[in-house]
């Protein structure tokens, strides 16, 4: 028996990597291929007509692709600018509620677009909070909605938390002794930051920016909700083509979209592969108190900056979320009401078999989130270890494993319908994959790249000698990973885990395809169902989603924090 466990331990990494490849093949590459093939193969003939039409159309190239890239670039800059101060604050200062705040940073990431739209209209609209504030201060009102600016702010709402979370994890993994060494050699605090800390943060900031670009490049509902068709992105057209069953056009558009996203990701990964550190991690920099011991001019300036940033955060993040909560308790006559929540209670009590009830939706969401965590973490960690090895074509392999982030959700959904729900006919058998397991697999495929991108750079930065000494003392590769490396990069693992939960809870496209029928619907699916022709009940469901998600993040962080002694 002992030898069997030994054998398993020695082979564990290879086995997990193999299983990951298999899952990717079944729930991602094969289904998506069934759609992409439509771009070049229709009615039994090979044809590039769809590509030719798009690539020779000024409308598609300039008005759609170029515009989409432009707004994604602006959105990325806004997200990084808005996200970095948050990482600085969370990683370098201590204040009551810091851990909870860090857990909640990722909350916007899971907000359904209709909720964000409602919150944004209430915050930035003509009669919104911002304009009331400006009016109170005697300043002119701003027309923000239905402009490119509105889309950029909304994208920052979604993605700045991502930048914050990834960068915070990297910052918490900075080896304090390297900074101390620099300081003892006479470098000032700024110089030490630029020469020692910044290089250790750069990969995290860049991956945050890359992911943000990829996401905002494929953004769809929020663009139309806050901008309008005049600001349509490529994903709007993919959706429209799929809806009217013009698959060749949809697949061609999606292929070009994916090529651009993956190309960018590949370029980033090539860059990442060239940089590597030799830190030892897990000696985080000491945190400062938000209230300084002595009010020097510099301390005052920094605190003023933090206060200003807090104001922006209140407006951009807290404002819309508070508006959503307010909307859920506001009646049609503008007064306070509990009617929307009463609807949820009533639906729970009297819902029929074909109707979606809130409690099963909450339960399913949590089950899927836990399942995703259990599947995506090993997948992500195993791939992180493999990608820290040096080999030719590493960046290409890496980019392939990142593909689930770069392919349009609409295309993935259609592929899952064809590939898994309809299944594959082999002789007299039809192999189908649906239900809970398929949902978890699909969520894990969407989530594990986040684990990889949070863990791999930190693992890469560790000193190889740590593992070598563990190995020379007789530990297997997996033992060394579990006992030596992972605890040292705990912030990254925990951040990855939080992302996995977030991705799973927020996922809609694949879930609604795979969880057809009356059994496996989740909170976002329930919210969609409750829209009907009145918005009230959906806002109440949105608040339920907010609360359940917040609690999940706090639990993940606390549990992970205990393990990693954060």
């Amino acid at each position, binding site marked *: 028996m002992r030898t069997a466990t030994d054998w398993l331990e020695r082979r564990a990494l290879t086995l997990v990597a193999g299983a990951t490849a298999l899952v990717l093949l079944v729930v991602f590459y094969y289904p998506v291929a069934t759609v992409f093939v439509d771009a070049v193969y229709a009615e039994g003939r090979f044809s590039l007509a769809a590509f030719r039409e798009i690539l020779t159309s000024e409308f598609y190239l300039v008005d759609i692709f170029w515009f989409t890239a432009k707004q994604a670039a602006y959105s990325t800059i806004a997200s990084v600018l808005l996200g970095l101060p948050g990482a600085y604050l969370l990683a370098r200062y201590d204040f009551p509620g810091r851990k909870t705040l860090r857990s909640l940073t990722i909350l916007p990431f899971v907000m359904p677009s209709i909720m964000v739209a409602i919150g944004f*209209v209430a915050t930035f609209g003509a009669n919104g909070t911002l304009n009331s504030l400006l009016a109170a201060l005697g300043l002119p009102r701003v027309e923000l*909605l239905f402009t490119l600016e509105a889309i950029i702010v909304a994208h920052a709402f979604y993605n700045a938390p991502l930048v914050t979370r990834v960068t915070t994890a990297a910052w918490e993994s900075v080896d304090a002794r390297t900074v101390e060494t620099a300081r003892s050699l006479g470098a000032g605090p700024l110089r030490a930051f630029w020469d020692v800390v910044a290089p250790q943060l750069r990969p995290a900031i860049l991956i945050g920016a890359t992911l943000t670009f990829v996401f905002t490049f494929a953004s769809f509902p929020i663009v139309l909700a806050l901008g309008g068709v005049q600001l349509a992105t490529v994903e709007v*057209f993919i959706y429209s083509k799929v809806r009217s*069953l013009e698959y060749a056009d949809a697949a061609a558009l999606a292929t070009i979209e994916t090529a651009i996203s993956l190309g960018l990701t590949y370029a980033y990964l090539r860059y990442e592969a060239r940089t590597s550190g030799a830190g030892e991690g897990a000696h985080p920099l000491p945190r400062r108190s938000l209230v300084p011991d002595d009010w020097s001019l510099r301390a005052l300036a920094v605190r003023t900056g933090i206060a200003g940033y807090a104001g922006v955060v209140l407006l951009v993040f807290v404002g819309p979320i508070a508006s959503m909560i307010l909307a859920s308790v506001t009646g049609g006559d503008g007064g306070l009401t509990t009617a929307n929540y009463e609807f949820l209670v009533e639906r729970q009590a009297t819902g*029929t078999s074909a109707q979606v009830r809130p409690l099963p939706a909450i339960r399913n969401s949590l089950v899927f989130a836990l399942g995703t965590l259990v599947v995506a973490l090993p997948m992500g960690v195993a791939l992180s270890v493999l990608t820290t090895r040096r080999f030719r074509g590493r960046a290409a392999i890496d980019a392939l494993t990142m593909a689930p982030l770069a392919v349009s959700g609409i295309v993935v959904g259609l592929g899952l319908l064809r590939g898994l729900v309809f299944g594959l006919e082999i002789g007299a058998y039809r192999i189908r994959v*649906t239900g809970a397991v398929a949902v978890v697999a699909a969520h894990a495929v969407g989530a594990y790249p986040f684990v990889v991108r949070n863990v791999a750079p930190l693992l890469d930065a560790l000193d190889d000698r740590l593992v070598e000494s563990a190995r020379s003392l007789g530990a297997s590769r997996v033992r060394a990973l579990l006992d030596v490396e992972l605890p040292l990069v705990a912030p990254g693992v925990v951040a990855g885990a939080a992302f996995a939960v977030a991705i799973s809870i927020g996922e809609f496209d694949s879930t609604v395809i795979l969880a057809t029928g*009356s059994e496996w619907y989740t909170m976002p699916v329930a919210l969609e169902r409750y829209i009907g*022709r*009145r918005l009230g009940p959906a806002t109440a469901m949105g608040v339920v989603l907010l609360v359940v998600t917040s609690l999940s993040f706090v639990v993940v962080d606390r549990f992970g924090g205990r393990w990693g002694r954060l």
Partner: protein
Amino acid sequence: MRRRAFLRRAGAGGATALLAGCVSRDAVPATEGGTDTGTGDGAGTDGATTGTTESGPTTLQVATYAPFVDAPSSSPGPWLKEQFESEFDATIEWQTPDTEINYFIERASRGVAVDADVYVGLDTDALIRVDEKLSEDLFVPAELSNAGNVKPGLQFDPQGRAIPFDTGYISLVYDENQAVAPETFDGLLAEEFAGDLITQNPQSSATGRAFLLHTIAAMGEDGYLDYWRRLVDNDVRILGSWSDAYAAYSEGEAPMVVSYSTDQVFANAEGQDLSKHQIRFLNDQGYANPEGMALFADADAPEVGRQFMDFMLRPAVQGEIAVRNVAFPATEDADVPADFAQYAKEPPEPVTFGYDELKGNVSEWVDAWSREVAQK
């Protein structure tokens, strides 16, 4: 060709355990009309018993759009199921695939059996997609005793497969405290209405599509693009979905929104101020969007399916559907409650494009429209 008649689900016993046993197997049995042991794959993946079982009621699989059974206001679905089952020896199972009719088109074009008997909620657009994408018949005409009562103006299927069961009218909803909506399409171009109208994207929203078609009906095929260019210059807001648009309208972002002429029914139910829910029929017209039902060609229980469709057209049932689906009945003799007309407004003149007018045109119209409007 009734594939399902000789396809049988082997069920849990025969399921191979790949990925923890969520893979199903269809074995080809020697006999026809076996039973299914459902494993909870959900809508459209698990058929029910066929009409040839000796014991128990027949199961009728009715596919429809989700709000028909699951809207927060009220849905006809549960009531219809209860009423029908109390009278007929049958059990209704609702299926609500997310992509609605496209789900069945996709199934049929991939050669996967369609596991449903009746589809409820087809519009002209959907029917055209069915006919353009599939070479074989997805639906067949059904002989109904009550079909003669359907208003002739609502009939939209030249082949008689889709029978209308209700209709909605798309109109403007406006807040008379902020602005009084103009009476004509041309009036919307006036300076005073700059930035005052919110509508929806015809590519992704039924109301948006109806409004676009209404402008084509009013301005002509040659004039509608120019009209829209001027609407865009007058700052019309075109949002993604009905809910986006209505949320923005509710927050006072603009005084007019494209919505349903039954808007006051909801507003009244929520005790809202009706001055914010005034209805305007531009050019005294409302664009009719009739909804039909049809029998699938390879239905397992075609007889019960026909009974159900006939049941849907009864005067009493038509009245209930109108109230619960907040739409207008399709038949001349519907028993609609007296106060229904108080809040549900009917246009002086319904307008709609028929099947033949839309076929071969609608996708070009929408495509040309999107290129006109999405120019940066």
